[in-house]
């Protein structure tokens, strides 16, 4: 492994991050708040550190190996989180550096869990930076990097695969760089569209920007204490619901629709059907539950349940109602949706709908084989037949996902949280959702959790964002041996 090569790309990455700090800097100067110095210093530190590292480690030809790519991706996310916390630290937003870091990790991983006790009292530029970190993390900073820089042939493919596992099958174009460009272009297109619509709906430019920057990456930060409920507008809720749903769809399908004019891909996609099916069925069930238990009108019950379901399942974490005070069934259903998550190839997190589909079909096949062991039942997904290797990868990933949840749950219990808070905080962190239940519910925040707990949750968020393996292989001894 060539550490020098890894450092070279990491340097460039940090420098790009510094460039994006210019946006809140401009906002800070325009609004005349006192934290513009913090942004200027942070940007300068990022640029200086990044460019120096980049310049000190010249690389010649040679391909980036898979191992090096994994290290660039894992290291890139960690460095981005660390450097992204500089503005908070320098502006004195938080009393401790752990909190600044937590907010930054929560931003980049598009979790949207906050340690701010009051949001509206913060400077607009700081809140804007929170949302920008989410926007960068949503489609992936490494993917953006690959799209921007003409690098490295197979190395680029390794990078993108380490950041968006499962893209191996979903490579859209012969060159991975074109794929990276296409998805980022789609992402920016959707974002621009949402921004315009929110402005038309009457949001101030600041709120329109922060909400947009947090919707498309399925992040969840807003500039208000009450999240989307603060706007109290059906129109705004409708726009946000629509774009959250789009962000939770595999972007490859949009690519086929817009570039290749193949609507068939979209209509026949088995994952998409289950995704929308689940959204609608669970919304209706929760609406029934709400109107029966809380006595809400049918319309109001559906409006609340639909928004919350979409927000939680796409792992965004916006809220228009405090679902923590909802009846038990509704809360349990939402907690389960946090584990399922959005579609593969989307900006959403968690386990992904496709894996659920594969697991259920696999279990069904096993059931058939239980009473007749000689039947041969292929695992069909749409028209394709999945091979044993693909299925076993899904099973391995799921097992690891649940092991991570269990491990996190035990640690969070150990630092003194009650069961419901401990479990939901871990599920919401690994799944990059944001709000959980009980003490970390929509109306609460993560401020009260002890530092050790916060560090564990940060780990959960990063591990969850990179779909476990990319982060966790760093802990296997053989990854480091035999350089």
């Amino acid at each position, binding site marked *: 492994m060539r550490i020098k090569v890894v450092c070279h790309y990491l340097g460039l990455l940090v420098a790009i991050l510094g460039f994006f700090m210019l946006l809140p800097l401009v906002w800070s100067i325009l609004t005349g708040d006192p934290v513009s110095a913090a942004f200027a210093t942070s940007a300068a530190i990022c640029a200086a550190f990044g460019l120096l590292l980049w310049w000190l480690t010249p690389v010649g030809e040679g391909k980036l190996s*898979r191992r090096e790519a994994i290290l660039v991706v894992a290291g890139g996310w960690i460095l981005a989180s660390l450097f992204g916390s500089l503005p908070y630290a320098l502006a004195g937003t938080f009393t401790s550096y752990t909190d600044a870091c937590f907010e930054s990790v929560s931003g980049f991983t598009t979790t949207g869990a906050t340690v701010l006790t009051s949001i509206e009292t913060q400077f607009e530029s700081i809140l804007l930076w929170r949302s920008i970190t989410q926007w960068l993390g949503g489609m992936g900073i490494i993917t953006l990097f690959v799209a921007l820089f003409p690098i490295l*042939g*197979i190395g*680029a*493919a390794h990078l993108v695969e380490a950041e968006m596992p499962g893209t*191996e099958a979903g*490579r859209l*174009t*012969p*060159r*991975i*760089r*074109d794929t990276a460009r296409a998805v980022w272009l789609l992402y920016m297109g959707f974002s621009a569209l949402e921004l315009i619509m929110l402005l038309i709906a009457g949001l101030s430019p600041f709120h329109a920007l922060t909400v947009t920057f947090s919707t498309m990456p399925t992040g969840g930060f807003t500039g208000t204490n009450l999240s989307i409920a603060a706007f109290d507008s059906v129109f705004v809720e409708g726009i946000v619901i629509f774009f959250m749903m789009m962000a939770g769809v595999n972007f490859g399908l949009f690519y086929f629709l817009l570039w290749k004019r193949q609507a068939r891909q979209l209509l026949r996609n088995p994952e998409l059907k289950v995704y929308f099916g689940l959204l609608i069925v669970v919304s209706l069930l929760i609406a029934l539950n709400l109107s029966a238990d809380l006595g809400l009108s049918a319309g109001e019950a559906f409006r609340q349940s639909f928004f919350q379901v979409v927000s939680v399942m796409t792992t965004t974490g916006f809220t228009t109602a405090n679902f923590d005070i909802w009846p038990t069934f509704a809360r349990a259903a939402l907690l389960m949706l946090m584990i399922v998550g959005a579609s593969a190839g989307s900006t959403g997190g968690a386990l992904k709908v496709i894996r659920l589909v594969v697991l259920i079909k696999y279990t069904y096949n096993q059931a058939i084989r239980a009473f007749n062991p000689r039947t041969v039942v292929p695992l069909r997904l749409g028209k394709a037949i999945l*091979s044993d*290797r693909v299925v076993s990868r899904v099973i391995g990933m799921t097992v690891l996902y649940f092991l991570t949840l269990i491990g996190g749950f035990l640690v969070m219990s150990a630092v003194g949280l009650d069961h419901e808070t401990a479990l939901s905080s871990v599920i919401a962190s690994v799944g990059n959702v944001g709000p959980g239940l009980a003490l970390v519910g929509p109306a609460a925040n993560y401020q009260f959790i002890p530092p050790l707990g916060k560090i564990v949750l940060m780990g959960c968020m990063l591990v969850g964002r990179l779909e476990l393996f990319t982060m966790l292989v760093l802990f296997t001894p053989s990854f480091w041996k035999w350089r």
Partner: protein
Amino acid sequence: MYVIIAGSGIVGFHIASLLTEGKHEVTVIEPSEEVVDSIHSQLDVKTVLGNAATPTVLREAEVSRANLVIAVTNNDETNMLVCFLAKELGAAMTVARVRNPEYTGYFVSAAKSPSAPRKIIRPKSLGVDLFINPEVEVAEKIKGVLSSLYPSPVESFADGRVQIKEFRVNEGELTDKRLQDIVFPHPCVVAAILRGGEIILPGPDEYITMGDHVYLVARSDSMDEFGGMFARPQRPVRSVVFYGGGRIGFLVAESLEKQEIAVKIIAETNSRCQEIAARLERATVLEGDATDRDFLIEQGVPSADAFVAATESDELNILCSLLTKSLGVPRNIVVTNKPGYIPLAEEIGVDLAVSPLLQVASRISHFVIHGGAIAAPFIGGKDLQVIEFVTSATAHIAQRSLTEAGLPRDAIAAAIVRDDKVTIPPNDSVIRPGDHVLIVSRPSATPAVERLFK
């Protein structure tokens, strides 16, 4: 440029790797899932799993926008079918690897005009723009080397009027002289020097040292007179020993037989020996193992003029040819499928290593160069490319001189052919449409050269 490669054996894989280095878009079609996985971990290409000879699979690979389809599966019939379908579905250019000579060379007399024989298989009606046959190409190359006085490869351009030839410097007369001080008997251009595994594009004050490989461009008819300057000519080949009962050995042996050259073929299995013996009239066919020193001496191999190792195993080929060299055979040629072995083999004493793979890459590489290239073989491994351009009227370089157009640093113009007149080295006159211009360039500079002729 968008290229689809059907089949990812050794040839398919290496073509894909060459093309991705040149920043082309590549999709590989391959039926084996394991192979697809290994491609994914090595190349930045899209893969489509399945049988390339079916329209669904080809369509999934977006054949309609393909500029070039290269069919190199193991099966001749599949390859032709792939090209046929690809052409029907809208591919611009197709190349098929066809090994069986019956497909490309079988003639019949048509009933209507008995005097005019025609091929049964006409590439155009099959949708194949180019047939390639790696074994035949390699056999041709080996034949060329064996019939020349110097054991080195040669490439011809402009209908054979101009050649580029590689010479090994192993005589004292020229060494440690500067290029500008050397008096050549005929006009020529020293296009490149291969020294210690590295290609140098020499300036006029570059020195030539012992052990260099010099790439010289000159008129074909004067080429042999240059040889004596660099190395002592070897005596003409009168006897050749082949090792390996494969197609390459057989093809070369067959044509050498006609030139009255004594041929011995060593093959390992009795059945293969029988087969070869039945098809060759005068050749001596021996059953045995060419790594056996005593066997070689017993069969008189040390007194042969040349030894060609062409078995399936690259390692075996190299080892045997070293063995025969130590026994006193003056020339040895090795066939290898791994291009990485070529510099290595030549380093340790093999006179010439040829690779079917690089032959194929050389044959098709001009298809991916825009701007009227009609040939672009690689020489010296894959570090140098010789490109023959036909200048079009709209080309950037047309109606300009070479200095005016500004060639990139890693490229030189070696010859200009106008009608029948060959100019070497090219003077600085204006280049006219229709001129053939021969450019020697590193692959990295090729895109810049391309732009001049676009």
